[in-house]
C-alpha cells in the first residue's frame, strides 16, 4: 500500500493534538498511515507509543529549532521533505488554523490539489475521493484531484474511526528552516482554564443557548444542563452578539459547524444561519416558548415551553436517573 502522510500538530507544551486520531484513521483508509511531525526537540518514547496507538505505521520526525519560533513554516518544510522522501499518494491535515495554512502552501509548492474541509475520505479505484458537507449540510459534495498530489484538510471531529494500533518505525531527520518568509511567534497565551467540558467541535452532545436565555447570568442554565449531560456548550449568534457567552461557543454558518449525536437548542429560534451549523446532528431537541420558531421544523423532539421551567426539571430527572 502507498504511504499517506498525516501532519500531526503538537502544542508548544509538547502535547499531541486531539485531531491526530481522526487524521491517522483517515490516512489508514487510503493507505499506510505515516505521522509527520515537526518539533524543536526529539519525540519522547511516550510520543512514539501514543502515535503508534493511534495507528501510525511510520513516524517522520523532523527536529528543527524553528518549531515554536515561527508560524507554520517548520511543519510545511517537514511535510515537503516527507513528500519528497516517501512519495505519498495523499496528505491529510487538520482543518485547523495551522493545518490549513500548511495545506494551502503545500498545494502551491508541490503542484498538488487541495480538497478543503472534508468530512470523510475514501479510496475509489485508486483515486482519493473527499466528501464535503456544504452549506451547513444541505449538500454532500464529493471531490477528487485529477492532476497532482491530493492534499486534504479534515473537519475537526468529523471522523469517528480509530486506525488499528501499530508499532511505528521512526525516521528522525534534522531540518534547517529558512525563516525569511515566516511570521515570528513572540509568545503563547494559553487559555486560562482548560475546562472539564468537551470541546464544541467533535463533542458527542452539545447544549446551546440563544437569545431566549435573556442574560449572561441566565446562560448558566445552559452550562448546567451541559454538565448534567457531559456535553459541550454552544450558543446562537444572537446570544454571542448579546454578550451572553464568548464567540468561540458560536454554532452556525459563522462559527462552529457541529454534528453531534445529540443537539439541544434552548431558547434558540433557529434562524437559517444557526441551522447551517447544527442540522446534521443525529438527534435534535428544541425547547422554545415560541411554538412557531423554525427550530421546531428540524427538531426530533420539540417542547413549546419556558426553558427556565423545563430545563431545571430535566436536570433533576437526569440527575435522579444517574444517582
Amino acid at each position: 500500500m502507498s504511504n499517506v502522510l498525516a501532519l500531526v500538530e503538537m502544542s508548544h507544551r509538547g502535547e499531541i493534538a486531539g485531531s491526530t486520531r481522526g487524521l491517522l484513521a483517515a490516512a489508514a483508509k487510503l493507505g499506510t498511515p505515516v505521522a509527520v511531525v515537526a518539533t524543536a526537540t526529539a519525540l519522547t518514547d511516550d510520543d512514539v507509543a501514543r502515535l503508534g496507538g493511534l495507528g501510525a505505521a511510520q513516524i517522520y520526525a523532523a527536529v528543527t529549532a524553528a518549531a515554536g519560533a515561527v508560524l507554520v513554516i517548520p511543519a510545511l518544510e517537514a511535510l515537503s521533505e516527507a513528500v519528497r522522501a516517501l512519495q505519498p499518494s495523499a496528505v491529510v491535515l487538520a482543518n485547523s488554523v495551522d493545518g490549513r495554512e500548511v495545506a494551502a502552501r503545500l498545494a502551491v509548492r508541490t503542484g498538488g490539489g487541495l480538497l478543503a474541509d472534508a468530512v470523510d475520505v475514501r479510496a475509489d479505484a485508486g483515486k482519493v475521493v473527499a466528501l464535503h458537507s456544504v452549506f451547513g449540510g444541505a449538500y454532500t459534495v464529493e471531490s477528487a484531484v485529477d492532476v497532482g498530489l491530493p492534499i486534504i484538510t479534515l473537519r475537526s471531529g468529523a471522523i469517528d474511526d480509530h486506525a488499528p494500533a501499530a508499532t511505528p518505525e521512526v525516521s528522525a531527520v534534522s531540518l534547517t528552516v529558512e525563516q525569511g518568509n515566516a511570521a515570528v511567534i513572540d509568545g503563547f497565551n494559553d487559555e486560562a482554564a482548560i475546562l472539564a467540558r468537551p470541546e464544541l467541535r467533535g463533542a458527542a452532545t452539545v447544549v446551546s443557548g440563544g437569545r431566549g436565555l435573556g442574560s449572561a447570568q441566565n446562560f448558566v442554565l445552559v452550562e448546567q444542563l451541559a454538565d448534567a449531560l457531559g456535553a459541550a456548550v454552544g450558543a446562537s449568534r444572537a446570544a454571542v452578539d448579546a454578550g451572553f457567552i464568548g464567540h468561540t461557543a458560536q454554532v452556525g454558518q459563522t462559527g462552529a459547524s457541529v454534528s453531534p449525536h445529540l443537539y439541544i437548542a434552548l431558547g434558540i429560534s433557529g434562524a437559517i444561519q444557526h441551522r447551517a451549523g447544527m442540522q446534521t446532528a443525529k438527534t435534535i431537541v428544541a425547547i422554545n416558548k415560541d411554538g412557531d420558531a423554525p427550530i421546531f421544523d428540524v427538531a426530533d423532539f420539540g417542547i413549546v415551553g419556558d426553558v427556565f421551567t423545563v430545563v431545571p426539571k430535566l436536570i433533576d430527572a437526569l440527575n435522579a436517573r444517574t444517582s
Partner: protein
Amino acid sequence: MKIVVLVKQVPDTAEERKLDLTTGLLDRDAGDSVVDEINERALEVALRVKDANKSTEVVVMTMGPDGATQALRKALSMGADSGVHILDDSLAGADTKRTAAALAAGLKVTGFDIVLAGNESTDGRGGVVPAMVAEHLALPLLGSLVSAEITEGAVRGVRQGEGGTLNVHAALPAIVTVTESSAEARFPNFKGILTAKRKPVTTLSVADLGSADLGSAELGGAGLTGFGPGADARVGSTVIVSTTERTARAAGRKIVDDGTAATELAEFLVANRLV
C-alpha cells in the same frame, strides 16, 4: 502605505443557498449575493489605519463575475479608495488554487505594502486562499488574527490558535487574515454612498495579469492549457465528482409543556440511548 483588502461576493447566509446539482457550482440566481461579512471586518482594520493616517491608500480587490462589482462598490462606500476587479470568463468555477494564483498575479500588478483578508469565507469555508497567495508571493502570513496593529514596516497581532492565542509579528510586506472576533465593521454613511459611484474600479482580465505568473504548470496541472479562450474545460487540478442534496429534516414530535414535558424528554433521551 498601500493596503489591499481581498473581498469575496458570497450568497447571503440569511437565505437558502443552493448548488447547481449538475455542475456542482454555486447557483448564483438562487438568492442575493453580498460582500462576505468577514471581508468587511478586514476592510475595517484597513480603514482604521487610514483614519489615523490619511495618506494611507486602501484598495479592494475581488475576483468574480460581472455582478461582483457590487461587492466592490459596497466596500468603496465604506471608505476604500479604489477597486480592482479580476474578471474573466475563463476563471468561472476556478478552484481555490487557481483563484489564489489569479489574486497573487493581481496583487503583483496592483502593488501593496500589506494585504488583508478574512480568515474563511462563509460559502466555501476552506480558509486556504490567503495562505496560497502568501506562498505564491513568498510572503509571511499572519493568519486568523483577533486583533492587528499595522505600523510603517511591520504588523503585529494576536492569532487565535487551537488551545489559546499567540502573539505574532512580521515585517511588511505581509498577508494578514482576521477572524470574526476582530473589529466590527462600520456602516457606509451617506457621503460614502454618494462618492462610491465616482471612485475608480479597474478591471483586470487574465491577459492583463501577465502570462509569466500564470503559466499553465503553476495553475492547476498538466491538464490545463492555461487561461483565456480555448482553455481546457477543467478549471483546476481538483474536480467535483458528485453533488447531492440532503433530504430535508422532518419535524418530529412537538409537545406543549403542561408540567410533564421535562419528564417526557428525559424518557425520550433514555429510550434513544442519548444519555
